[in-house]
C-alpha cells in the first residue's frame, strides 16, 4: 500500500468517526471517558474470544465458529456496559457539566456505541494496514487492488453499525423490547458472517448487504432515538 492509498483508506474509514468525535464527544470530558471505557470493554471481549479460540484447538481453522462466539462476546459486553452505565447514572449526573448526557439516555448509548465501533474498526483496519506497509498494492497473486478500499469501507460500516446497535440495544433493554435485541444480535451475526465471503474475494457480495443493513439499522436507531419522518423533513427544510 502506498502513501496516497494509505491516507485515502484511513480518511474513508476514520474520517466520519473522527468528525463525530470532534463535534459530539471532544468538548465533554464525561463523554470522552465513556468512549474510552466502552473501547476497553470491547477489548475485553476480544481477549475472551481469543482465549476461547486458543483453547478450542480443533476448531481453530473453522472461522465461522470463531465469528459466532466473537459476536456473542461482543454483545455480552455491550450488555455489561449498559448495566454499568445505568447504575452509575446518578454519579454521572453529579459530575457532568453538560447535563444532556444524563437527561437524554440515548447520548450515553451513542457514545459507548461509538467507542465500541472505533476500537473494533481500528483493530480491523490497522492490522491490515500495518501488515501491508510497502510500495505494493494487492493483486500479484490473485486478489484485486480494490481490497484496501473495500476493507476501509467495511471498517466504516462496522463503526457506524456498532454506534447504531448500541442505541437500539440500550433502548431495547430500557423498554424490554426483545424484538430489537434480537434484531441487534441477528444483524451483527449476519454482517459478521457475510465477511466470510471475502475469502473468495466476493467483495461486493459483502459490502452491498453490509451497507443495506447499516442504512436499515441507522433508520431504526434514528427512530428509537426520537427521530421521525416529520422531524427529518423539518430538519431538511431548515424550519
Amino acid at each position: 500500500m502506498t502513501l496516497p492509498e494509505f491516507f485515502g483508506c484511513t480518511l474513508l474509514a476514520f474520517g466520519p468517526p473522527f468528525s463525530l468525535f470532534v463535534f459530539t464527544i471532544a468538548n465533554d470530558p464525561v463523554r470522552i471517558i465513556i468512549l474510552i471505557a466502552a473501547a476497553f470493554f470491547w477489548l475485553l471481549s476480544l481477549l475472551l474470544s481469543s482465549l476461547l479460540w486458543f483453547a478450542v484447538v480443533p476448531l481453530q481453522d473453522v472461522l465461522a465458529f470463531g465469528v459466532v462466539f466473537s459476536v456473542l462476546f461482543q454483545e455480552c459486553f455491550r450488555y455489561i456496559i449498559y448495566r454499568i452505565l445505568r447504575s452509575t447514572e446518578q454519579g454521572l449526573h453529579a459530575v457532568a457539566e453538560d447535563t444532556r448526557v444524563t437527561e437524554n439516555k440515548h447520548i450515553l448509548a451513542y457514545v459507548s456505541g461509538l467507542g465500541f465501533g472505533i476500537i473494533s474498526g481500528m483493530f480491523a483496519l490497522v492490522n491490515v494496514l500495518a501488515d501491508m506497509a510497502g510500495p505494493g498494492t494487492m493483486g500479484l497473486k490473485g486478489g484485486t487492488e480494490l481490497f484496501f478500499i473495500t476493507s476501509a469501507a467495511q471498517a466504516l460500516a462496522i463503526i457506524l453499525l456498532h454506534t447504531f446497535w448500541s442505541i437500539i440495544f440500550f433502548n431495547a433493554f430500557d423498554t424490554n423490547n426483545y424484538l430489537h435485541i434480537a434484531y441487534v444480535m441477528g444483524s451483527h451475526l449476519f454482517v459478521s458472517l457475510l465477511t466470510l465471503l471475502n475469502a473468495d474475494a466476493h467483495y461486493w457480495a459483502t459490502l452491498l448487504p453490509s451497507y443495506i443493513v447499516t442504512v436499515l439499522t441507522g433508520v431504526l436507531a434514528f427512530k428509537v432515538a426520537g427521530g421521525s419522518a416529520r422531524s427529518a423533513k423539518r430538519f431538511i427544510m431548515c424550519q
Partner: protein
Amino acid sequence: MANLKTTPLWLLLLLQVIIVRGERTRDTMYQPILGASCFRRLNGTHQTGCSSTHSGSVGVLHLINYDADLDFLLGNPPSPPYAPMIPPHLFTRSNLLRLKEAGPKIISAVLLINKSEKMQQFSHELSCPNKYSGIGRGGNSSETCDESNTALTWNPWGTGLLHEDFPFPIYYIADFDEILKLENCFTKFNSVNFDSQALRSLCAVEVKAFMSAAVNSEVCMRRTNFINNLGGSKYCDPLEGRNVYATLYPRNSSEFIDETKLRKSNPAEKFIIISCRLDTTSMFDGVGVGAMDSLTGLATLTIVAHMLRQLLPDQNTLPDPHRNVLFVAFNGESYDFIGSQRFVYDMENLNFPRRSAQSTPISFENIEFMLDIGTLDDIRNIRLHTLHKSSTVAQKLLQQLNRYAKSSLYDFQLNIGSNAGYNMPPTSAQSFLRRDDNFPAFILNALPSNKYYHSIYDDRDNVGFMYANTSQDYTALTDVSDFKNFNANSLQMKIRNVSSIVAMVLYETLTGRQYEYKDVANPVLSDEFFYCFLQSSDCPLFKASSNPDSPPGLPLPPMRYISVLGGSQESSGWTYRMLGYLLSQPQPQVLKENCTQLPLFYYSGFNGTGECRLTTQNYTHALSPAFLINNYNWSSGQYSTWTESTWSQFSARIFLRPSKMHEITILSIGIVVFIISFCLIYIISSRWEVLFDDVPASNAAFPPPTNC
C-alpha cells in the same frame, strides 16, 4: 511464529476474513526474488559500485531483449521509474552509461538476468587492472599497460564498469525459476499494452541495497573513526584478509620474543619466493569463483609446492643448506595489490614473519629471486616477464624452463616465451618492483584470453573443468606417461605440465643437478584441487587437509573475494590448511595426543586415518599499509585505499505498483467522504434538537434526575 499464529485470529475477530489457510495477506502481495547485489566500494578518491535509496528502490519491470528496447525506457516512458531486466550480452558499457545518464527518476534499478546464451564476453574490470598501483617510470602506468592500444592491455575485454559509480542498485538473478517469476509477472501485467501503462497497476520490483558510505575512503574512514560518532555506526571497512605463506623446509632460525630488541635478519638464509594471487572479485556479492583469472595460478603454485616436497632431499644435503623456497599466496591483489603491498611493507620494516611466529625476520637481502605466477589464461603459451633484459637469473630461468618444456622425455607441449621491459602484467611482483626496480622478480604469465576476467561468469565452464572423481591417491607423483585417464588437453593435464616444468626448474636451481626422472606432478591432485575450489568445499582434498574431528566444508566453493575484517576468509583458511598439508613432513613417531601445538598438526590425511605432520605454513595480515600510517595522504596513490561500504541488507521483491490514477482515486474518495461527513455532522450536531424533538420513549421509564 507467534505472529503467524495470532494473525488469523485477529483477522477473524476483525471480520476481515481474507485469509483462510493461515497465509499472511502480505504474502499474496509480495514475492521475494533471490539474487546477489552489487555494492559500493571506495578508494582514496572515488566511490564505485551501487546503492539503492534508503527505503529501497522501486521500478517497473521491463524486459530488454534488444538494444532497441532501451529506447522505450530512455525516450519518454509512460510510467517511470523503471527497472530494466538485462541479459548479460546487453549489459555493456554503453548501455549501462545510457541508463546511468537517464538518472534515478527514470531508471531506479537494474536487474541482470542469467540468460547467457548470446553472451560473448563479460568482464567489467578495467582493461588495465590495477593501473594506478603498478610500476611505471615517473608514475606513468601506460608503459605497463596502454589503454589506447588493446594489444597492450591485460584485459582487452574489460569495460571498467566495476569502477563506475551507479545511482541505482544492480541485482543479479542467477536462478532460472526466479527469472521465470520476473518474466511471468512482466508479461502478465506490463507488456500487455505499453501505451496504457500509466493507467494500470504494473509489476514492479523493489531492490534494497542501501550503502552507508559515500564520497571516498578518506571521508568514510574519518566518519567511522569519528569521536562524535555516538551511535558507533560504521560507514565502511577496509578490505582486509590474510596472505598465506609456507616454506619448503621448516626454518630453524628461532627468535625469542623480546620486544625491546630490534629484530635482525639472518644474512645466511636464502629464499626463492614463488607467489601467486589468492583472491578474485566480481561485481556482485558472494558470486564469482575466478576460475581462470586466478585459480589456475593458485593451482600451479600448490602443485609445484607438493612436487618439490616429494622430490627434494633433506635441506642439509643441498649444495647450499641455507636455501629455502617461500611460497606465498597474496590476498586482495584484485584491489591494487593489498596483500603484496603489505608484504613488502612488512618486509621493509623487518616485520615478516611477525614477532609471534618466533623466527627471525626475512629481509629483501634474503631473497634470491621471486617467481610470480600470474594469470595463465592459455596454459600452452606462457611468457616469462622481466623488467631488465640483461638479468642473468632471468635468462638462466628461461633457458631452463624451455629445456624442460621442450624436452622430448616429457612431451609437455608447452611454449615459454620471454618478454622484457615495462609491459608487465598486473601481478604481485609489481609491488616488489615498485619499491626497487632492480628486484629480481619474474612473472610467468600467459597472453590475456579470458573474456570473463573478474566476473561472475569466470566459472568452471570458462576453464572447461570436468571433475573426474577418480578417488585415486593424489599424494604421490606419477610417471609422465600415466595420464590417469585424463585427456591431454584437459585442464588437469595442462596444470600438471606447467607445474612440473616449474618444479623441475626449481629442483635444478636448488640441487644444482638437472632433473632426469620420469616422475611428474599428479593430474589427480589438480583434479581434486579444482573440484574443491570450483564446486564444493566438502571435497576429498580439503577433508584430507583438515583435522579428522573438524566439520566438513560447505557444499559450495569457498568465497575468494578478500572481503573485510569479520568476513568469511574461507579461501585463505582452506589454502592455509591445504598448502600446509601438501608441504608438511609426516612425523610417525609423534602420538596424536602430543600433536596439538604448531608447527605439528594432526591431519586427516588422504585415507582419513589421521597422521601427525610437521608443517611450515602461516598467515600474514593483508591490510593495506594506508590504514596503518598516521595521516596517510589518501590521494597519493602510494598504497591501496580500497574500503567496502557497510550495508544492512540485500533483498528484492516483486509486487504490483498501483497506478497514479488508482492512488489519486482512492485518496480523493477518502478526502471527499471525510469532508462530506465533517460538514454533515457539523450541521446535524448544531441543529440536534430539531431532529430529535420527540420525547424519547425510554426517558419516560425513568424518574427525572434528582437535583443535588
